């Protein structure tokens, strides 16, 4: 039975797709059209009661929340593909630390920028330029801390590529491509090298090829 991943066109599900490729796990995708509101359909809400994407289905086993899905597959297939969690409790502790940083500090401003810049007109509201400016400033402060961290550590969680780095791929790709804010990455030497490293991984390149993002506003 092949894992099904819902919503591949969008950013959060892409975290799951790149993880599955790194772990050499086969999958299929099921499209969900957010702009048509398919994530709020009663049938979808049975799978994910909060009405967000992604969802995965592995036979009868259904999961949601992208980072929970990442941890599940990284753990389940620990002995194959890339080690995304670390070998000891201590290494895992640091991976979790920086995955929380991504979730709590990096994601909120970059998510706001994504909605405002890329989806506002499709979703039917005007861009809030103040909010965009504030979010970019918040994100810049986080990137300054990343610059310091990555000057001492090759990857965020330590000296190996892990879920902590992987989780950043989809929205950061939006930042450098569709949002036209590549300068935020390039102006920071260590962040820039880290971004080149993680985004050129064959797994991520494959995701970008197979599942283009929805066209912007």
């Amino acid at each position, binding site marked *: 039975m092949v894992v099904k991943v819902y919503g591949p066109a969008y950013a959060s599900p892409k975290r799951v797709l790149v993880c599955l490729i790194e772990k050499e796990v086969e999958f299929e995708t099921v499209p969900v059209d957010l702009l048509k509101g398919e994530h709020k359909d009663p049938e979808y809400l049975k799978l994910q*009661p*909060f009405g*967000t994407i992604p969802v995965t289905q592995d036979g009868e*086993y259904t*999961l*949601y*929340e992208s*980072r*929970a899905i990442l*941890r*599940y597959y990284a*753990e*389940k297939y620990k002995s194959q593909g890339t080690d995304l969690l670390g070998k000891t*409790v*201590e290494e*895992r*502790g*640091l991976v*979790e*630390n920086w*995955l*929380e*940083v991504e*979730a*709590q*500090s990096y994601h909120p401003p970059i998510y706001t920028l994504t909605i405002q810049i890329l989806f506002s007109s499709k979703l039917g509201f005007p861009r809030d330029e103040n909010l965009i400016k504030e979010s970019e400033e918040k994100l810049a402060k*986080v990137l300054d*801390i990343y610059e*310091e*961290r990555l000057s001492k550590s090759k990857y965020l969680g330590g000296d190996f590529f892990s879920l902590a780095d992987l989780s950043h791929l989809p929205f950061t790709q939006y930042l450098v491509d569709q949002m036209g804010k590549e300068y935020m990455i390039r102006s920071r030497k260590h962040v820039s090298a880290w971004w080149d490293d993680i985004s050129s991984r064959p797994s991520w390149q494959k995701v970008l090829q197979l599942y283009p993002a929805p066209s912007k506003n």
Partner: protein
Amino acid sequence: MAIKVHGYAMSTCTARVLLCLSEKGLEYEVVPVDVANGAHKQQPYLSLNPFGQIPAFEDGDVKIFESRAISKYLARKYKDTGIDLLGSSSLTVSTIVDTWMEVESHQFNSPMQAIIRQMIVNPIFGIATDEKIIETELEKLGKVLDVYEERLSKCKYLGGDFYSLADLHHIPYLVYFMRTPKSSVITSRPHVSAWWNDISSRPATVKVAETMKV
């Protein structure tokens, strides 16, 4: 002492870590951080948490920050001490716990944090309370709690039939929220209310909640 938590009792994120330590029966030291004088935004604190946020954590040579990562580290490292807070017996069980920890982070935390800021934090700093924000965020919280009501009608705890970090992570904000006039949002939902009564009366919760004074 090997385990040190840098923070202070009033802080919800510090409380999250202290709850975990208390549930596991682990010995620890709280190292106070002089937040009033901005110690958390300077060295040496920044070398423990470069974001200048509370708490930071040390266990011998291990240094971690982010309260939810710290609690997971403790639950894993000290798996065999005290109760099992992650459902480590099986990956499918622990993943359900993980899912509801993510739900707390991404659905519950944001509206709750906004409400607590308006109702409890702002008054401390003499900032006006914005009723409109409270109303909007209560509506969002209500929708999330409707999903919790459904979940808890089928399951005693969020992660399944055992108390876990999925429940514990909610406690710090709920301790403050239940002291406000808006607590009916919890008490009006029978299964959520029963769940709160259960987890708030645990000895570890009572012990830590006592120290959470504004």
